[in-house]
């Protein structure tokens, strides 16, 4: 049996975060479908918000899992989340409008089997393992789908594999300038994988506070969204990309300020230090 090294004292229970994260991620993903209904790309930024929501949920799942000493470091949890998530997400994109739901179910199945494998075959025997790996595969798949929606404006296989390029006034179809064909998915993969594992890795310890970690996750999520929004200039109209970029920057500035406030609140003492002064005569 493993020893649980930290308990959640106070704060929001994990199941509430799970439910809120899942619902808001799916709602934000489906809000990007307004792109198709209104025939614009203005609603792509909801994909970025889905990323942030999924990451907040995922980082709390990592906290639940890594409270047990799994002995492999926190980053490995983020890696398996996205390793299993990307596989589910790529298949799910083929199901058109149902893609987010299919990604959810498929990732849950993959995560469940991986959880069984690690808990029973590999003999980890950690109570939270199966549920945590299931949740994290779902988080990985939905985060990547959110990035896909943010960058391309859609989440179906056709939209992710084809783009358009204009040569001397003519618009030609291209497959190189697309989310999958252009390798943008690899960038999205690591943007998400780093954002999901960093917050708990950075805030763990005796002074861990739930709200501070979740705020740091939101900050990392918006930071990733800024990069995603910049990449989206290549694939969607400039106006839509600017909206996504503005949302990301506003979100990042707000969460960064909040995070700094919480860090000062939780610190033993705070000293606004100045850079090392130049000493005269040297």
């Amino acid at each position, binding site marked *: 049996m493993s020893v649980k090294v930290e308990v959640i004292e106070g704060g929001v229970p994990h199941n509430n975060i799970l439910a809120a994260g899942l619902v808001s991620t799916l709602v934000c993903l489906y809000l990007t479908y307004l792109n198709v209904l209104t025939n614009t790309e203005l609603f792509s930024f909801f994909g970025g918000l889905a990323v942030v929501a999924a990451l907040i949920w995922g980082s709390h799942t990592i906290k639940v899992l890594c409270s047990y000493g799994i002995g492999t470091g926190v980053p490995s949890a983020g890696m398996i989340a996205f390793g299993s998530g990307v596989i589910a997400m*790529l298949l799910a994109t083929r199901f058109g409008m149902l893609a987010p739901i299919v990604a959810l179910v498929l990732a849950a199945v993959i995560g469940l089997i991986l959880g069984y494998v690690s808990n029973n075959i590999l003999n980890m025997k950690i109570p939270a393992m199966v549920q945590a790996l299931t949740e994290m595969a779902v988080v990985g798949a939905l985060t990547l789908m959110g990035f896909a929606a943010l960058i391309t404006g859609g989440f179906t296989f056709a939209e992710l594999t084809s783009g358009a390029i204009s040569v001397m006034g003519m618009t030609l179809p291209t497959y190189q300038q697309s989310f999958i064909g252009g390798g943008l998915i690899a960038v999205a993969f690591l943007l998400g994988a780093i954002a999901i594992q960093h917050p708990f890795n950075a805030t763990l310890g005796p002074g861990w506070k739930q709200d501070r970690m979740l705020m740091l996750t939101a900050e990392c999520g918006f930071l990733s969204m800024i990069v995603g929004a910049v990449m989206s200039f290549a694939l969607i109209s400039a106006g839509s990309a600017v909206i996504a970029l503005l949302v990301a920057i506003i979100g990042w500035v707000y969460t960064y300020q909040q995070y700094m406030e919480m860090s000062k609140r939780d610190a033993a003492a705070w000293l606004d230090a100045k850079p090392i002064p130049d000493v005269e005569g040297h």
Partner: protein
Amino acid sequence: MSAVAAKPAAGGAMNPTAMAVGVVMVLILLGIGYVVSPMVLTYAPTVSPTFALMALIGVVIGGVLIGFGTHFVPVGGAPAAMGQAPGIATGVAMLAAGAGLAGLFGGAWAAEQGLVVAVVTGGIGGGLMMAITCMMVNFVYVFGMGIPSASGKVANDPITGDSQAEYKSQGTEGHGLPFVSFVGGVIGGLLGGAGGTLIYIELLSLYEETLPGMMQITSAQVMPIAVSAAGMFAVGLFLVNAVLTAYNITGTIEGPHDPKFKRWPRAIVASAVASALCGLVAVLIVVPL
């Protein structure tokens, strides 16, 4: 209890029931692969009916190679960074991903020259990456931190026969990178790189054949998508296998002479299940809905 005192849970014991369930799961997943394999003929009429199944089997072999190879890599973690345990000072997932991706990039360059050449190239890429890493790590340990290489798990180095105890500092589990760990690292890199490349090549050939029919475009247009999708699946599979192996050896391992190395049968079954599952999903993407 503090975080320092908590020990990782997994012991060396095998769970025979779970192992049997794992083997059955692999067979079921391969069976599903056998059933769906002829369906890809819709998009690629020229290939043989078992083409997709062969790709799936290749993926499983590649995944098992990764899982097995990772056990050879000397992983030291945070204690190694402080010179208190032998090995390279980072986690299993990072090292396995580094070796495997280095091999994958090497093998991908040789993809045009056939399966054997590409897999061997990938293995050499991974082994080379690990050899360079092990050498530079030892440079830093010996000349930077001023510590000799000594294993804490064995009295004599199994390859060179050098005795270790005289060089081991008290209160540590050994430090540096003994010769056997170096050799283990290179073997691990070879197996991991070859496995990663095998997964990539199998999926690439599958997608090159089927995606043109599925997307109604030419095979030249499909190349970037086939390469990127196969690469992403290979990376995903690699990370899943590497992390599962990390769970198996719970943190640190010195190399092939470490007692934890005997846990490899568990990792073989676990990697086979995970690779069969993820490989099946990768095959399903080119099956008609």
